[in-house]
């Protein structure tokens, strides 16, 4: 048992750190640190920078233009990026679609789509959830009917993150309504600029518009955009969940969030002393830090096993629950820390206007972030669904 990095891991960590310090623009890290939103161009610029280095697709095999990292290396990269306040790598093309295409796509699909994911030629979004299919994803109703060499798609997807920027969407669609729920689903790639696709933003409770409804009305999709076999889409969707979840615990985000929280708590004053010395606050802070330290270690234990080739199963669910609870707790403490200055709702704080902030510069986005990150325990399989998975595995009933 040795908890420290091996010499190789340490060298890799140093290499990542050096790259970030040389190449991550302060303009971007400042926005991430301050909790401000990033534009489409910001995301694209960061992806391009990583792609030039060959680090955009950490988990992809080298033959597809990836870095070919194992789980430990991926973890080190993700952790260092979070600590440097680098923009998150958008997962839709890279972490979600890419691995599915690599495992189940045709040679033509791999040749065409994978390089375009890396180059940023396509901006992908995910078409899974529907108004009636959330936790019960398999009850989805969007229909795709074969019509010659096309599918005719009708239906509605929702909670489509950053769909307003996307030109492509990968969708789960129902191709056999007579089959059992999971067995009549197919995995389809749909051009969002095609006639009949309509994107409507959903304004969220924190004032942001990052998710959308996507409507399909008689959208014609060429059959070559079917991934794998018809009616096997559920298998591919599930493959994603078991193979691409090393960062599900969000340890790096929590560590960075905790650092920011401590920074704020050193500046804020309560009863004439720094807030960080206030016994109640210090106790809350200590509790979440202790939880985070243990969770980070659990995460490493899982990653270490994954690097040896064992696919994480129920551990993913455990890490999702604990990881999101800790991140939300840090958001909650950060909101508390700024006191009355959590109350102003200044959307410029998110958008980055030239107006000076209301109150301390760190205060603007914290309440919005607290509310926005309620989503962490809802999306990607709600924490209730994760607990159900854990219980099923455990109880075998």
């Amino acid at each position, binding site marked *: 048992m040795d908890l420290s990095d091996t010499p190789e891991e340490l060298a890799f960590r140093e290499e990542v750190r050096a790259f970030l310090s040389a190449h991550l623009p302060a303009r971007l890290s400042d926005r991430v640190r301050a909790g401000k939103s990033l534009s489409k161009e910001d995301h694209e610029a960061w992806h391009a920078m990583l792609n030039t280095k060959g680090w955009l697709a950490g988990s992809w095999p080298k033959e597809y233009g990836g870095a070919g990292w194992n789980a430990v290396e991926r973890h080190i990269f993700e952790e260092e990026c979070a600590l440097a306040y680098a923009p998150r790598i958008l997962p839709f093309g890279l972490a979600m679609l890419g691995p599915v295409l690599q495992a189940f796509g045709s040679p033509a699909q791999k040749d065409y789509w994978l390089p375009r994911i890396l180059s940023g030629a396509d901006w992908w979004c995910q078409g899974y959830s529907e108004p009636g299919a959330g936790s019960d994803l398999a009850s989805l109703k969007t229909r795709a009917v074969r019509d010659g060499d096309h599918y005719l798609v009708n239906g509605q997807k929702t909670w489509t993150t950053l769909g307003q920027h996307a030109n492509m969407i990968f969708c789960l669609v129902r191709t056999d309504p007579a089959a059992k729920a999971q067995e009549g689903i197919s995995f389809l790639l749909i051009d969002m600029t095609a006639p009949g696709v309509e994107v409507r933003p959903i304004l969220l409770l924190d004032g942001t518009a990052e998710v959308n409804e996507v409507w399909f009305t008689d959208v014609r999709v060429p059959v070559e955009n079917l991934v794998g076999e018809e009616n096997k889409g559920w298998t591919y969707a599930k493959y994603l969940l078991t193979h691409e979840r090393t960062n599900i615990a969000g340890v790096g985000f929590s560590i960075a969030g905790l650092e920011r929280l401590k920074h704020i708590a050193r500046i804020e004053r309560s009863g004439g002393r720094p807030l960080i010395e206030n016994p109640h606050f210090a106790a809350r802070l200590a509790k979440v830090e202790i939880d985070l330290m243990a969770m980070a270690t659990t995460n490493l234990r899982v990653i270490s096993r994954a690097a040896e080739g064992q696919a994480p199963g129920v551990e993913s669910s455990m890490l999702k629950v604990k990881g999101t609870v800790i991140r939300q707790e840090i958001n909650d403490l950060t909101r508390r820390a700024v*006191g*009355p200055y959590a109350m102003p709702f200044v959307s410029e704080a998110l958008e980055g206007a030239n107006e000076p902030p209301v109150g301390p510069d760190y205060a603007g986005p914290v309440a919005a972030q607290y509310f926005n990150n309620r989503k962490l325990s809802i999306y990607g399989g709600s924490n209730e669904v994760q607990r159900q998975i854990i219980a099923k595995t455990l109880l075998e009933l």
Partner: protein
Amino acid sequence: MNFELTSERQMLQDTLRRYLGDRYTTEVRNRIIESDAGMSAEIWRELADLGIVAALFTEDQGGFGGLGFDIVTVFEELGRAGVVEPFLDTAVLAGGLVADLGSEAQRAVLERVVGGEAQLAWAHGEPTSRYDLSHVETTARSLDGGIELNGRKSVVVNAEAAEALVVTARESGEPDDPEGLSLFLVPGGTPGLSLRGYPLMGGARAAEVTLETVHVPEAARLGPAGDVYSAIERRVAMANVALSAEALGAMETAKALTVAYLGTRKQFGRPIGTFQALQHRMADLMIELEQARSAVILAAGHMADERCSRERHVSAAKNLIGRVGRLVAEESIQMHGGIAMSQEYELAHIAKRIVMLDHRLGDTDHHMERFIAFSHV
């Protein structure tokens, strides 16, 4: 022992609940929140006509209520409907201070407040004061028979709409001394007074207020020179009971929405409310909500006590409400799932209102400390 409302308060509750139920729909409220003014002058006037402002003042102050149970009756209903109009600021805080401390001439404004024609705001908190009531750095200097005010006030709710601000300023002592504080009525538009307004996360508007060589006459002084801390504390106690009642009402709405959703939303072929994992959490939520109701009643019933008992009960209520409020807001959102994240859906505003109420006049931790402090006096 009698936990029934008096018939007058019952009538007040019925009237207000009926009016808000008909008039203050989610759509109307969302429109108000997004408007430039952040409130509806029309609804304010209509509520004043119904006597809602008057219910927050005692008879000798020109109202017909003003006691702890009147305040909680009104604010529970305001909270239930997610009302953003500034009753707390105009009536309970600024209006209350004028009523408690004002000369006859100064109290003249209350008639217009009760009638819905005038609004007020209390400019007390400062950029570094957090929740410490005695931390005031804004200064008041006597000068040629008048007063000069200098300083900065933060998150002054309703400052823009107020025809006058009640400003707390220090005439002597150190920044954290309870002694040496005075209050002044400063009309909006007084030279040297500047506002930077913005909307609030939970609805309504506030402003950063700067006072730069603001001159007011000696007649603007509200109450005794350098000796208003106990009056402030009493008003803030009342306001905290009002906030607690408002949160209680909002939590009732969050509960009702969640119960309805659990009964109608189907996943895996059945209403999600049939899943025991959600049932038990809903049951816990219900238990905590009854705790919250009791805490509000307990605090309201001790408003007329001597300082230590009053403050101890108020802090107990605000602490418990803060804890239960977070639970109810977060669990309601979680049990709804994605739909609760949408601004259009009623719960979004209600949840934000509940959580952000904790940031006014002392949060859960602040009142935990106060409760401990007043338990050892």
